[in-house]
């Protein structure tokens, strides 16, 4: 009898997990805060891996002047990133630290993971949003553009985030 119960608990749990993923996605669309961030300028051949695009954001490179971590941070450590909007409404990196920072005005805070420090003293971090599967018709558009991409992401108050939309824009020379 107890075994039967285990079975039903297991099946219900699995259905609930999958349904939770679906609903939380729609909840994010509805209740999440939507911001736009920019990727690095890219070459179409370098970012396409089969059917998905590998996105590297400008906000993932932290210059020493924006770096406020206390001491040595280890790989994969949790990093808080503070973004602030510019005149065009695109969010740019303001500060990154291993401690939580106070959020003022239009600023938003994201969680990222530390990767490494490169030769130019720039700290590489990972926002965890690097994979994007474009639609079929969008795929062609992205494949032939050599530019930056504007990525709209949705942030939930409970720390979840996801990509809503990706569009390419020309690079201003």
């Amino acid at each position: 009898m107890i075994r039967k119960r285990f079975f039903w608990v297991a099946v219900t749990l699995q259905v609930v997990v999958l349904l939770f993923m679906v609903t939380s996605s729609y909840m994010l669309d509805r209740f999440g805060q939507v911001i736009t961030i920019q990727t690095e300028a890219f070459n179409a051949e370098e970012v396409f891996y089969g059917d998905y695009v590998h996105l590297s954001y400008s906000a993932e490179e932290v210059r020493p002047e924006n770096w406020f971590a206390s001491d040595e941070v280890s790989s994969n450590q949790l990093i808080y990133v503070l973004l602030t909007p510019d005149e065009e409404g695109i969010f740019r990196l303001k500060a990154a630290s291993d401690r939580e920072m106070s959020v003022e005005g239009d600023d938003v805070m994201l969680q990222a993971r530390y990767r490494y420090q490169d030769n130019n003293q720039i700290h590489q971090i990972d926002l965890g949003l690097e994979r994007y599967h474009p639609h079929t018709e969008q795929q062609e558009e992205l494949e032939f553009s050599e530019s930056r991409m504007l990525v709209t992401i949705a942030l939930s108050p409970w720390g979840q985030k996801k990509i809503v939309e990706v569009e390419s824009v020309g690079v201003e020379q």
Partner: protein
Amino acid sequence: MKRGWIEAESKEWVEEGLIDQKQRQAIVSRYKRHSTPTLFFFLAAILIGLACLSLVAANWTAIHHLFRVLIILGFMSAFYFVGYRAFIRGHHGVGVFAYVVALSAFGSGIFLLGDMYHFSMNSTLPFFMWGIAALLIYLSQPHVFIWVFGLIVVFVGQMLATIQLHDFDWFLLALFVIAFGTTGYLLKQKRLMWLFTSLLAVQLFVFSVSELEFYWFTIFALTFYLVSYGVKFDEIQKPLQGTAVISMFIFVVFQALLFDPFVYSEAFVLQEIYYLFLIPFLSLVILLAILNQEKVGLTQLVLFLPVFVWPEYTTLLATFVLFTFSVGKMVEGDQLYEESKVKYGIVAFLISIGIVYIEMAWDFLDRTFFFLMGGLVLFGVGMILNRYQRERLKGSDEE
């Protein structure tokens, strides 16, 4: 295999008049014909499960989002239903097959939905959920294949976490040890315990390398060895101790081969706290071995000696450890009349010789001299064993 052989062999015995037809049938019937349809069902389940996973790559983008969710949920529930019905009717093979397919559908469902909704997936939570699901299904139908499936899911999750995300996941380890360890303990099957202990050893090794220093693995292996004295059941004790010894053997082999004093002597810092663990653990193991009256068996503990303490001599010390271990195994096997132990000893011995041949970079000790010494020592051991055996034979004659 066995039955086929006994059938053919016993036919000759009847012809030679050793036994009669009735006796032959009685003998043959002792060897049951093993049928393995469950295995085929399990392999079929794996293939279909793989097909299910490769759906990720398939042309899946054309279907509407919500419809995809329905497909995943429907596929999973359908197989659970089929499995459930099969178990009620007593078709265990089909039931296990259906459950494994359903579990694969659940796992791939998590990743498919994650990709579809562009979630950031930098966590081990999917593997944790997947492992929990497999565990619950196993508890509802305690079938070893489901247990193995869950074990591998958790193991793969841990490997991805440590190697790709550089973050050893304690929850996955807890799930592995507490949940799968307990159920595995209750199963009391030697082969499954071997699988469990070796997968655990791999995880702990990866953990030592990525989060601590590589040599901390010796402490984990010692822990395995210590725990093995605490369990009475042979099915669990043997794999625990065996995994500890084999993993340490591999560990020492790698040190003999790859340890480069020029690279290590500068960067290598031995944390003092390491001794705080090593000395009590090692003494405890030695004490228990003595209390257990493992006379020659004690030599296998040389594997746990910290040969990396003096980087200049590491390769040499490691080779000595390997030789002592293999000769000890051979002598032990000879004393206990255990053929298999002698064989393991010979294999270990050949590996050790191979290493000396490859690793000839000792400028302070000539290879010729080393082999000569080794030969003389072995000759001495052989002499002693020979005399010992003769005395034993004499003793049994007098009785």
